[in-house]
């Protein structure tokens, strides 16, 4: 559905992404992990055309990205960012209807159609925001606001969802709610999602594929079990971790191990044994 081939992105003084290839397939959630500065956000921003790659190509439905207009891309790819700064009062409904922009008969003008309203209604129900439609965005709690941001992304009905640390400011339960909504969209409608996250356990829980990046390069791509290993994580994050199986789901569970912890050698050896 969305494919990046040998993507390289250079800023003036440094290379942020180097020869990364990536495929997002319908129905899959891909987690993009790696330490700060690994180039995760840069890669994500290039995937919807906001950053132009220095080399390599991006294919949307097997067509080069450059062939699509801005609005055509917006119908196919949507981005969920960390919440934007709101400087003007805007209601939740107005905010969510913003997701229908690309579907307007002509750009920049016009009113939402009956279909736009129906889509908005659906996503508001999905995200459990129906009671808040008339409220101002600034009056919502952090979790509600992030749900509205997701609702707007879902309202675009784009089959590709790019999420840039969408859970960074959320508590545990809101993180889970948000990602299960993404999961749901992929399962029920065959959407493809790419989630940049620092929460490895969340990645393990919701993702099918994990991409591990370091210093602009893709180190490893595979299913959660293949990528989330103690060895690889220690190599990439430069820190010891303990990886075991989640007692209920069985997906890998990652626990950082601090050097100063007593019995450190013991733990290290265990982690290597189990991770390997």
């Amino acid at each position, binding site marked *: 559905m969305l494919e990046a081939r040998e993507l390289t992105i250079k800023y003036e003084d440094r290379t942020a992404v180097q020869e990364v290839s990536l495929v997002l397939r319908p129905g899959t959630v891909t987690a993009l992990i790696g330490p700060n500065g690994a180039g995760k956000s840069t890669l994500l921003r290039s995937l*919807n055309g*906001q950053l132009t790659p220095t080399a390599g190509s991006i294919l949307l439905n097997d067509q080069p990205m450059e062939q699509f207009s*801005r*609005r055509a*891309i*917006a*119908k196919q790819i*949507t*981005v969920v*960012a960390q919440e*934007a*700064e*709101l*400087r*003007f*009062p*805007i*209601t939740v*409904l*107005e*905010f969510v*209807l*913003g*997701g229908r*922009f*690309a579907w*307007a008969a002509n*750009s*920049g*003008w*016009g*009113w*939402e159609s009956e279909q736009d*309203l129906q889509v*908005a*209604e*659906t996503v*508001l*129900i*999905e995200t459990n925001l*129906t009671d808040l*439609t*008339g409220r101002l965005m600034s009056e919502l709690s952090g979790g509600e606001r992030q749900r509205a941001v997701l609702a*707007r992304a879902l309202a*675009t009905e784009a089959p590709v969802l790019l999420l840039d640390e969408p859970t960074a400011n959320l508590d545990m339960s809101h993180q889970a709610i948000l990602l299960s909504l993404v999961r*749901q969209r992929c399962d*029920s*409608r065959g959407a493809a999602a790419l989630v940049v996250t620092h929460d490895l356990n969340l990645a393990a829980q919701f993702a099918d594929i994990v991409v591990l990046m370091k210093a602009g390069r893709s180190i490893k791509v595979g299913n959660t079990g293949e990528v989330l290993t103690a060895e690889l994580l220690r190599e990439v994050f430069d820190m010891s971790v303990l990886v075991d199986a989640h007692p209920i789901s069985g997906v890998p569970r990652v626990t950082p191990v601090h050097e100063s912890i007593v019995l450190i050698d013991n733990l290290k050896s265990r982690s290597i044994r189990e991770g390997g």
Partner: protein
Amino acid sequence: MTATVSNTSTAMRLRENRVTLQKTVTACLALIGALVVVVVIAALLGSERLPAGDTLCSLVSFGARQCGLTNDQFDILFQIRLPRIFLAAAVGGSLATAGASYQALLRNPLAEPYLLGVSNGAAVGTMLALLFFGKMEWSRPLMAFVGALIATFAVYRLARGKVGASPERLILAGVIVTTFLSSVIVFVTTLMDATRIRSFTFWLLGDLSGATKALLPLAIAISIGGALVLTFNARSLNLLMLGERDAFDLGVEVSRVRIVVFIVASLLVGSSVAASGSVGYVGLVVPHLARLSLGSDNRISIPAAALTGALFVIVADTVARTIIAPRELPVGAITALIGAPLFIYLLKRA
């Protein structure tokens, strides 16, 4: 389609909360009605008293009949007062529209042509046109447009740091550009002879009585055209209010819209400054009021701001030309008297 459980009350609420075409048309028609009333009232007021009944009669006939007015009274009404009222409307509409679109594009409720230095840019352009092409009247709006455009880009470049444009940074950039251009204005005045400086200082404060006959049709055409073009970009501006990145993600051609807004707003500011000097704070007060009463949706707030701006400047100028009659105040003094306190209030709240 997991959750399509239809909920009538939700559906109804959805439709009620929305800004619709009907709402916009209703609001605009109401404002046009108010505008007509205010134009008529303003036409009845002035330093010379005109008989109200005869004046109304003549106004209703669009100047076809004199209705008992003397020739002088008729000339006062149709040669002096009405053109000035129409110019006030064009200037007010232009500045308010420009303000509303700058605010949406730059995501800053404090963005305003006067405070961003755009008016000063247009003023420098106008002064240079007067100095070098004094005889050619059309050179004034043209040079004012160029000046406004250069100032706009200068502010925009200054405000965009590596960390992005914060509201404070934008206003700071505006201060820098404004003060720089103010000193350019002072420098240009030194190139003029003493007797012209007085007229210029008055003009710089915003004055609607000047040489405008030839520029009036242009100012009206630009104000209406500009408001329409910007209204037709209102949905893009709605998303730009939430940030350039969000807007881009949702399908807005950000750089195209930005160029359109910069050019159209510079045209609006340029034509009004060339005709009337720098009338301050209109672009701040009026869009603020429009958003306060009708919401932030630019599809309604831009046309509403255009009409309210026309209303506001007509009222301000009527005060300016009657309060110490037969002398006159610059209309900019009246708009600033209302606008400056509001600006300080908004700044404290932001």
